[in-house]
């Protein structure tokens, strides 16, 4: 072989040895290699998510007996949930409240996402960070802020009294479903922007040009092109808000009062002050089932929306 240069051949010669059996197995089997790398994460999530859920499921078939549990499997807790109206009312109220909060959040965020996607041309990243920043501030503190605003002696009441518009503070502001819904909407707005923005940004601008060329004005263009094409984002955002808000604990606990309680508060109470873990487990399982059902519905809706687009 001709010499390229003065490089000493032994310097760079590499042994073509085959490494150990494990290395060989990993080299040939990409799936195994992948799962080996993921295994710490998967083990932790199994121990921290799957096993706890299975235990929760088992406990939900137990019943409380004094301070301990009666571990004979029974459907008693589930029967109670079906028969006692209190549970149904609370579940229904949770879905209803988070449903309204979800719709309100989407309605408020959509124009903002639209603005950033279509009317911000420079520093988009700055805008996105500015909008999503509050989401990273402690959820507890964001809820707490609304207590400051809506409180009996809070910002709104004291301002109105100070301005002389009302004589006595309005009592319905705090400790009401409205307070919870307002707070949930505010708390999740920063989060809803992202999926909405992404779906709007993805829209091929030439479609809008084409629609205009074919005679659509801005309004018709929005309803015939932009809105349908951004539907996947709307659905994703709804899902991402609806699920966690349904099971929220902090907001109703701090702002809900008796009328604004949600299912999360009841679950917490079962594990806390009421000390009926089997009942708490049952409610958690029901909430999970509900989430699974909603997830499937959203999945179906997404498919539908995408099928219409494609």
């Amino acid at each position, binding site marked *: 072989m001709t010499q390229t240069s003065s490089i000493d051949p032994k310097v760079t010669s590499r042994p073509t040895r085959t490494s150990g059996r494990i290395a060989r197995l990993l080299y040939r089997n*990409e*799936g195994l*290699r*992948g799962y*080996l*790398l*993921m295994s*710490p*994460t*998967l083990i*932790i999530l199994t*121990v*921290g*998510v799957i*096993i*706890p859920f299975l*235990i*929760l499921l088992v406990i939900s078939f137990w019943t409380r007996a004094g301070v301990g549990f009666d571990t004979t499997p029974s459907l008693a807790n589930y029967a109670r949930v079906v028969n006692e109206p209190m549970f149904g009312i609370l579940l229904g109220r949770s879905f209803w409240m988070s449903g309204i909060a979800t719709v309100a959040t989407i309605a408020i965020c959509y*124009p*903002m996402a*639209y*603005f950033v996607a*279509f*009317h911000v*041309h420079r520093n988009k*990243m700055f805008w996105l*960070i500015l*909008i*999503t*920043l*509050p989401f*990273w501030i*402690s*959820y*507890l*503190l964001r809820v*707490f*802020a609304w207590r*400051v*605003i809506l409180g009996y*002696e*809070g910002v709104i009441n*004291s*301002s109105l009294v*100070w301005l002389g518009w009302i004589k006595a503070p309005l009592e319905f502001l705090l400790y009401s479903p409205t307070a919870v819904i307002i707070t949930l909407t*505010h708390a999740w*707005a920063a989060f809803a922007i992202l999926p909405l923005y992404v779906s709007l940004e993805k829209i091929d*601008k030439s479609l*809008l*040009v084409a629609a205009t060329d074919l005679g659509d004005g801005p309004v018709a263009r929005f309803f015939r092109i932009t809105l349908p094409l951004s539907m996947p984002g709307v659905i994703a955002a709804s899902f991402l808000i609806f699920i*966690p808000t*349904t*099971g*929220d604990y902090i907001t109703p606990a701090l702002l809900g009062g008796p009328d604004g309680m949600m299912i999360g508060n009841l*679950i917490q109470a079962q*594990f806390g002050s009421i000390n009926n873990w089997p009942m708490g*487990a049952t409610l*958690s399982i029901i*909430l*999970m089932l509900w989430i699974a059902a909603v997830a499937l519905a959203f999945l179906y809706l997404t498919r539908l929306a995408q099928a219409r687009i494609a």
Partner: protein
Amino acid sequence: MSAPTFLRRPNRVLSVYAILFLVALYFPILLIPLFSFNDSIYVRFPLEGFTTEWFGQLWDRQPVWDSLWASVKVGLPVSILSTTLGVLAARSITRDRVPGRSAVVTFIMLPLVIPTLIFGVALLALLSRLGVPLSLYTVAFGHLIVCLPFSVATLLPRFEGFDRSLEQASADLGENGWWTFWRVTFPLVMPGIVASLLLTFTISFDEFIMAFFLSGNETTLPIYLWTQLRFPQQFPSVLALASLLILFSLPLILIGMWISRLGLHENTTKGAKT
């Protein structure tokens, strides 16, 4: 993709809306620092004068320091561990053709969507069955589950952002997997790692629900704050503490978000040039 001029025409109504949106988004949060300097134990208008008394009160309170220390003791290992695991997971998700990939990703991302409350009570049930006493360790474990999806979500775009052939080139030039990671992969995903460390630390530092269910005697800062909410006379000092929390976490988050996105942007433009 740049839109044609007629689509880019500024829309005044929308611009005003955007300003109002931002005001509404930030106004409630900014009230907290505002009132934390107000010289009144009532949170109400009109403001009654400037004071740093509430901050001074915090300074002298041992439980504040204890819970702050507890939060740091939980947050640091959680962020390091979840980022490390996130790097491993993101690497194998993007680089190896693993069967059931999308199912695994969905599974890892679950804690992002499912209410933390359910994870909290489920973990509580597990720990009590196993007879594990509640402590900062159990809180950290809970936080790990909350933080993992954020780490993976922050790191995934990083790994997707550079070409697989760079790692192949390293192997081709004689480096094994270990050295390839340290000489090529690590430097290229570094911004994602920093972002993940900052974001997960902040999440753990601010997290309430897991800590609420899984704390033993030692409690983290958010739990301390929660217990103080019951006492109306403590309200101003709670405000002061909340202000400090916001003040502390905002820069971390800003830097984290900035680093994670800035780097990505750079990378893609570089990729486009080749």
